[in-house]
């Protein structure tokens, strides 16, 4: 059949036309083989731009279309749809990226124009060999996996479960609640974090449409949008969840005291424990690293078991529910879901690497989360602000931007620290009113509903705001009045002089950073990561909760530092996206996949183990490989590996690729 190709060169305002001479590129395209029409237009993606293409398909009988504009990640679906609307198979379209790959990265106009011509020529040659392809639809599984039980995961899980779709909520720790459960108050309204969070936690625990898997981790995800298979490791709790009533007697009996992760090292827990009073599920867990019985078992010794047996001599019984099960082992469960919401959160920057601030060297230098626990009425000091020796502090300094806005650690602003530092100041003025409170800031960043007003309120509450980043915290006294104090050394940039502020306690407002295992989690869910290490959204502005893997969403601080309102909004957004997919009930699968020519297949099985999606099986009867159309992602691994050349990658045939290369080189 005669090829009739139309070429459309986009100006993209001045994004392309500012560097590339679009007229010259258009004239060049007109001269290419089989090109019937070539035009340029200010915004080809706009309605009038798309109409140009549609009209030409109808009027000029075009059977191939090339648009030279931005990245196909941006507008390939737009133009494919335009082709389809005009009755042309969408796979007879090809895109030349002359923006990201050309105008945006070059300054020399003449050379950029030559490069744009080459890219257009490549696309024209390639599209010549395009074949019409048909996409298929498969059913969409309405179950949803939510990974992470902080406020983000809780919100997303509830939104979906409330619309009566099954949710699997997987949480790594023994309880859901995440960081928010550790906080004392929340800014700027000063609601108690637990008061607004725990009702949601309880609802999650009791919801008929939520299967909560705490103390569990996702190990593997296979499949594709609409039809994922997920392997979840349920870590041995050594406690039968069905039997444990959460009464806490075992905790009283356990003789082992260790530092509590939940209390960030300023409080203790037992080896059998519930991380905090309102834990959901309300079940204990045994920490095998510290339990003397479990440690003893490794050496073949049967010791302790006080939690199980109680203290017979004193007449104190052990677990009456018979829930303790030292023989429990990790087990793996498999679930099938259609979409996945990743809400794995953040970790607090460890300030001990910043030697000058003295964290880890001076007892009274603490992190923000440690202060949250200290200030929390259910924390280890019952809400009293105390120094390590039990005294009340007479002066406290709060240091902003610890690990944030610092080229040595994280360049980004963690967004919430100014606000939580203000909250700390307020709590300090309330709890230790006689103490002086200093905030050392670079500049105050308080955008948000009621945030600036909160800052003004704190100025009136008598907090000392010092504009200057602290250089160091030292206990080396230079004057008698400095003895026994911690001196915060800084340049006060408003009065333009160096200051030494003697205080009793220093609170480090630490950065929010990606969790240490973000790389592993990213691999499991096929997520990209940004330069700052957080998970990458599909589009930073227009698609902030979707990812490059269809059907996988990211919400909350795993995508970047954010406050609770933004986290909740994002979680609800992702839930809405998942529900929208569920409501269509089906999902279109990519047509550009690999196919086996059974005539040529020699049955060598080279391809079978290579497929990263396990899409290839072997037909023992016919002795040929078979590719599952629903599982194949069209990656091309098998195509390249097949020694007989029996596998073709649709839409990426040898002919098409060679033509594209020739087009570039001519």
């Amino acid at each position, binding site marked *: 059949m005669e090829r009739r190709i139309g070429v459309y060169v986009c100006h993209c305002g001045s994004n392309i036309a500012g560097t590339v001479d679009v007229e010259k590129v258009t004239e060049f395209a007109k001269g290419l083989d089989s090109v019937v029409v070539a035009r340029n237009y200010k915004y080809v993606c706009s309605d009038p731009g798309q109409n140009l293409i549609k009209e030409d398909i109808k009027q000029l009988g075009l059977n191939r279309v090339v648009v030279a504009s931005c990245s196909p990640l941006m507008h390939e679906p737009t133009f494919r749809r335009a082709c389809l609307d005009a009755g042309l198979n969408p796979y007879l379209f090809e895109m030349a990226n002359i923006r990201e790959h050309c105008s945006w990265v070059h300054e020399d106009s003449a050379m950029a124009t030559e490069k744009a011509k080459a890219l257009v020529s490549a696309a024209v040659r390639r599209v010549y060999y395009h074949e019409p392809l048909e996409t298929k639809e498969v059913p969409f599984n309405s179950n949803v996996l939510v990974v992470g039980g902080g406020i983000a995961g809780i919100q997303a899980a509830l939104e979906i479960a409330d619309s009566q779709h099954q949710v699997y909520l997987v949480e790594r720790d023994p309880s859901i609640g995440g960081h928010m459960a550790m906080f004392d108050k929340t800014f700027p309204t000063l609601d108690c974090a637990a008061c607004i969070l725990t009702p949601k936690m309880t609802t999650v625990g009791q919801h008929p449409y939520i299967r909560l898997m705490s103390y569990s981790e996702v190990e593997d995800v296979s499949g594709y949008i609409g039809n994922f298979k997920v392997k979840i490791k349920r870590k041995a709790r050594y406690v039968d969840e069905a039997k444990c009533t959460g009464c806490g007697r075992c905790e009283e009996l356990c003789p082992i005291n260790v530092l509590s992760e939940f209390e960030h090292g300023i409080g203790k827990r037992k080896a059998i424990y519930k991380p905090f009073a309102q834990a959901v599920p309300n079940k204990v867990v045994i920490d095998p690293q510290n339990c003397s019985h479990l440690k003893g078992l490794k050496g073949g010794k049967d010791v302790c078991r006080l939690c199980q047996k109680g203290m017979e001599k004193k007449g104190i019984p052990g677990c009456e529910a018979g829930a303790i099960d030292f023989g429990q082992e990790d087990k793996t469960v498999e679930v099938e879901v259609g979409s996945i919401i990743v809400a794995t959160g953040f970790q607090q920057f460890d300030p001990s690497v*910043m*030697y000058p601030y003295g964290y880890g060297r001076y007892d009274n230098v603490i992190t923000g989360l440690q202060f949250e626990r200290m200030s929390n009425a259910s924390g280890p000091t019952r809400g009293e602000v105390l120094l390590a020796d039990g005294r009340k502090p007479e002066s406290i300094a709060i240091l902003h931007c610890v690990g944030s806005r610092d080229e040595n650690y994280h360049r980004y602003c963690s967004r919430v620290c100014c606000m939580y530092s203000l909250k700390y100041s307020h709590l300090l003025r309330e709890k230790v009113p006689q103490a002086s409170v200093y905030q050392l800031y670079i500049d105050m960043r308080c955008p948000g509903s009621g945030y600036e007003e909160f800052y003004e309120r704190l100025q009136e509450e008598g907090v000392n705001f010092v504009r200057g980043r602290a250089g160091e915290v030292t206990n080396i006294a230079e004057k008698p009045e400095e003895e026994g104090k911690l001196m915060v050394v800084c340049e006060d940039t408003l009065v333009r002089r160096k200051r030494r502020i003697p205080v009793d306690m220093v609170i480090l407002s630490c950065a929010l950073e990606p969790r240490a295992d973000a790389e592993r989690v990213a691999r499991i869910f096929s997520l990209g990561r940004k330069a700052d290490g957080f998970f990458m959204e599909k589009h930073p502005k227009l698609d902030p909760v979707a990812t490059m893997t269809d059907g996988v969403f990211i919400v909350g601080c795993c995508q970047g530092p954010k406050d609770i309102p933004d986290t909740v909004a994002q979680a609800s957004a992702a839930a809405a996206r998942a529900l929208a997919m569920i409501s269509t009930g089906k999902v279109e699968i990519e047509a550009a996949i690999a196919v086996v020519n059974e005539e040529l297949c020699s049955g060598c099985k080279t391809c079978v183990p290579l497929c990263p999606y396990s899409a290839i099986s072997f037909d023992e009867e016919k002795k040929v490989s078979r590719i599952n159309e629903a599982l194949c992602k069209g990656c091309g691994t098998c195509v390249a590996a097949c020694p007989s050349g029996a596998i073709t990658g649709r839409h990426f045939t040898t002919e098409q690729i060679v033509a594209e290369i020739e087009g570039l080189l001519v």
Partner: protein
Amino acid sequence: MKYYAYYPGCSAEATGAGLGVSALAIAKPLDMELIELEDWTCCGTTAYGSLDESEAIVVAARNLALAEKTGLHLVTPCSNCFLTLSKANERLKEQPKLMAQVNEALAVANLEYHGSVRVRHLTEVLVKDIGLEVISTKVKRPLNGLKVAPYYGCQLVRPDYGFDDPEFPHSLDRLVESLGATVVPFPLKSHCCGGSLIISEEDLALDLMRKLLANAVGNGAECIVTPCPLCQTNLDAYRGRVNSKFKTNYDLPVLFVTQLMGVAFGIDGKDLGLKTNIVPAGKVLANYI
């Protein structure tokens, strides 16, 4: 054998003579050949740069051009030379216009610089190229029990030329430990010694020195060790003035790290220039010499 173009700088031949001789003395057992750059001149130092930066860069570039001809890394034991040469080198690589101007000036002396030299501090070479494992194998008299405060000063690590943490460096600590000595905590290890302010702002500089000495002594140090000739001179030569001004009695010696290495390697004190130090080190080192 590792070969380097060696740039001693003026201090290592005058106020910090102990640095120059000890650097050469330890090079031998470590199989390093420090080939002195022929006809080297002043690095330009910080003072010149604050008056006329481009002129100062020409002065530094003359040495860089000479070093480029050797094809070797340019190594200096002096922190000040290291900073001045590194800074000039960086500017020249980043600014083609400046490079052209500077080459115009160098042409008078039939020299040209192309920007290929790597400027390195001797401490970095010892830690990274030679390595602490090799250094520890050359130790003949382990400095067991000697309590040392390693003092980095500012110019070795700031601005950051990729050698060590600019705020809390540690490589000198590891180097001292590889000799068998004990490193005492020294929080002020990269604070200012007063530098050349001793000339214009004596009170201020003496107070900075006092803080350093107090911190080292307070943490139990028996000696301070530094690679920098300016730091060493300040803490050593002005000791009397510190003691009389603040009515203190600090008598701990300030050694060059290369001198301490030499002692551990069993090299004779005379070949390490120990006599050029003003606060005597004999008592502290008595067990090891």
